[in-house]
């Protein structure tokens, strides 16, 4: 790409028009584009982002291997996408709300989720969905696109209650743009002009369905125009560009100028290196050589190169970060694996008060456990 091209699309940050070419700050190798301004991040913030991305990648590798060992159940890998996840969450203020999907482990972690809790959910404990009290984070959404109207409503609620300092960031995938809830949520967001930022993590694949067969639109960002919402297309494997675009969108959501609309749809263009989940085998439906071109633009490598070039990072710091994230992930695994649960949990929190009928069902189960022992409940098919 020429410098002129870069200049042509660079202007679109914060503008009402979007360009088909994704906005970038770093080139494929991690060099700062001559036309681009790096976002206003301190060295410390940059190192935090880098460390979070390192943690995300390490967590992902360990989670996939844990699934293979039967220590967690189905897991949705995020390698290749952690730059966008980490950068979008870094662009949030603490009080902002995050609506994640089942793949947004790193986005959740950066916004305040407990790493051990993420693993508890993957080990089949609903307790893992609970979040620290001061963190505005929803449990991950598993049905597709259902979070879009919720995020809109949460943002609408902020507006109606005069909370000018709180915005909502909602993640969704490229597949989600085909669901009715995407349309309804974006349409409402436009009509009620709410402080919401919708981040479409376009990783090119909805399980086996390539992006170009998901929608006949040239881009996903351009769908925003029809809703009266700003659409932006960003290189989702360029963490600095993702940060810049998301931060601008969050600021605009909270304090738009007279000619700006609050909501934004960001299309974060990236690639799912791995399988949809550990239950999926992508070799059945895609050519793995395709991922090589994307891996050459790896978000972690690019940020690392940039940080070395700008002397924010050196080998010593990198080693220290590596040791720290590995220890943090190991500690989370230890905590998650030590967690216990019991059948009583099945009936907790169904209602504020457990109905008598449900309590009786639990009592009946407990009587049977007493009579036959827990081993009798191990396997449905005997």
């Amino acid at each position, binding site marked *: 790409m020429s410098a002129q091209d870069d200049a042509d699309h660079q202007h679109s940050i914060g503008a009402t028009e979007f360009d088909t070419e994704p906005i970038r700050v770093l080139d494929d190798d991690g060099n700062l584009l001559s036309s681009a301004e790096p976002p206003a991040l301190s060295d410390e913030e940059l190192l935090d982002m880098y460390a979070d991305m390192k943690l995300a990648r390490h967590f992902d590798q360990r989670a996939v291997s844990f699934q293979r060992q039967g220590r967690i159940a*189905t897991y949705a890998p995020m390698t290749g996408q952690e730059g966008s996840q980490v950068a979008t969450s870094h662009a949030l203020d603490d009080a902002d709300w995050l609506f994640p999907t089942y793949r947004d482990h790193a986005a959740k972690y950066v916004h305040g989720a407990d790493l051990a809790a993420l693993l508890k*959910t993957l080990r*089949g404990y609903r307790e893992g969905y609970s979040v620290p009290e001061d963190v505005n984070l929803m449990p991950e959404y*598993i049905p597709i696109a259902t979070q879009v109207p919720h995020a809109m409503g949460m943002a609408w609620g902020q507006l109606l209650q005069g909370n000018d300092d709180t915005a909502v960031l909602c993640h969704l995938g490229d*597949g989600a743009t085909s*669901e*009715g809830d995407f349309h309804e949520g974006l349409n409402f967001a436009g009509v009620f002009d709410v402080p919401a930022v919708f981040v479409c993590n376009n990783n090119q694949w909805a*399980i086996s369905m390539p992006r170009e067969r998901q929608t006949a639109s040239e881009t996903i960002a351009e769908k925003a125009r029809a809703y009266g919402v700003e659409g932006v297309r960003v290189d989702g494997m360029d963490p600095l560009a993702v940060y810049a675009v998301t931060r601008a969108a969050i600021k605009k959501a909270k304090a738009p100028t007279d000619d700006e609309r609050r909501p934004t749809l960001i299309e974060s263009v990236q690639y799912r290196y791995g399988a949809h989940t550990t239950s999926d085998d992508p070799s059945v439906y895609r050519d793995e050589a395709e991922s090589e071109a994307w891996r050459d633009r790896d978000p972690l490598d690019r940020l690392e190169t940039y940080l070395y070039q700008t002397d924010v990072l050196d080998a010593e710091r990198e080693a220290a970060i590596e040791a720290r994230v590995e220890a943090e992930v190991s500690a989370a695994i230890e905590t998650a694996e030590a967690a216990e649960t019991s059948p009583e949990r099945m009936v907790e929190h169904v209602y504020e008060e457990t109905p008598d009928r449900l309590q009786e069902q639990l009592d009946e189960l407990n009587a*049977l456990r007493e009579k036959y022992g827990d081993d009798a409940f191990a396997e449905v098919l005997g």
Partner: protein
Amino acid sequence: MSSTAAAAEAESTTERLTLVEGVQEGLHTEMERDDRVMVLGEDVGKNGGVFRATEGLYDEFGGGRVVDTPLAESGIVGSAIGLALSGLRPVAEMQFMGFMYPAFDQLVSHAARLRSRSHGQYTCPLVVRAPYGGGIHAPEHHSESKEAFFVHEPGLKVVVPSTPADAKGLLTAAIRDPDPVVFLEPKLIYRAFREEVPTGSHEVSLGEAAVRREGSDVSVFTWGAMTRPALIAADNLADEHGVDCEVVDLRTLSPLDTDSVVTSFEKTGRAAVVHEAPKTAGFGAEIATTIQEEALLYQEAPIKRIAGFDAPMPLHALEDYYLPQAVRIQDGILETVTF
């Protein structure tokens, strides 16, 4: 069917298949037999379906008849209704029952009542397949059993196979049926066992229950994956308590084979119903009520419901407590027998 065709079918060979292979075979055979039959859904083409239920169909019949759609359940079922109206025989796949809800409006407001709304002028020969049920340690929303939602809708048929041969035979009947059929596949037993399945055309009539084990002391009504633990419980009760259970696999929940239910109950005078779905307003309630309407004077004990809890399906660490286990089924049947 002509007598020649019937004779050919009687002589046909069999192959040992799993339940999911029975589904795949049913689709394959009907697509070969009838050009109007097509498959559509998420990841059903190149990928062969997330459970491989449509494996090989894309290569054999092409992308025009085995269609990977955008990710939109209402779009899939809604467009399948239009396809059916146009004269085709669509078989739509919902990836998991837990993801059917966006299509619920299309099913209940339209598929179910096109025939009645148009006074018989338009019909909706549509099959909507969905894997359902728990026990495979799947993520949240992947393990529910909400068959009662669909049974409650007049105009829909609801079918649940529990064996590989029935998976093929009932799916064949569903595809040939002139009305919309919700075809629920118990994914816990997709690959749990194999049995001989007739090759070629194999149809098992809708609306007919199957007695899986004859017995004289108590009738156990069930369907889908619960047929297995019910049979295990029956064997244990025979060995340990001398109780002779009759296990009836309903196979079609709507329309219900009332005759088979009543006939079995009149023989035993006692009944238990086993299902994974939450107990309250589950299909077990319909069975119990039907029995008291039709055979009250034969009843010797309260009818026992052995079911899931009136709570959301737990994440997988607790799902084996949620699902009816042989031990729970056994205990519940004994309660009925010793009343």
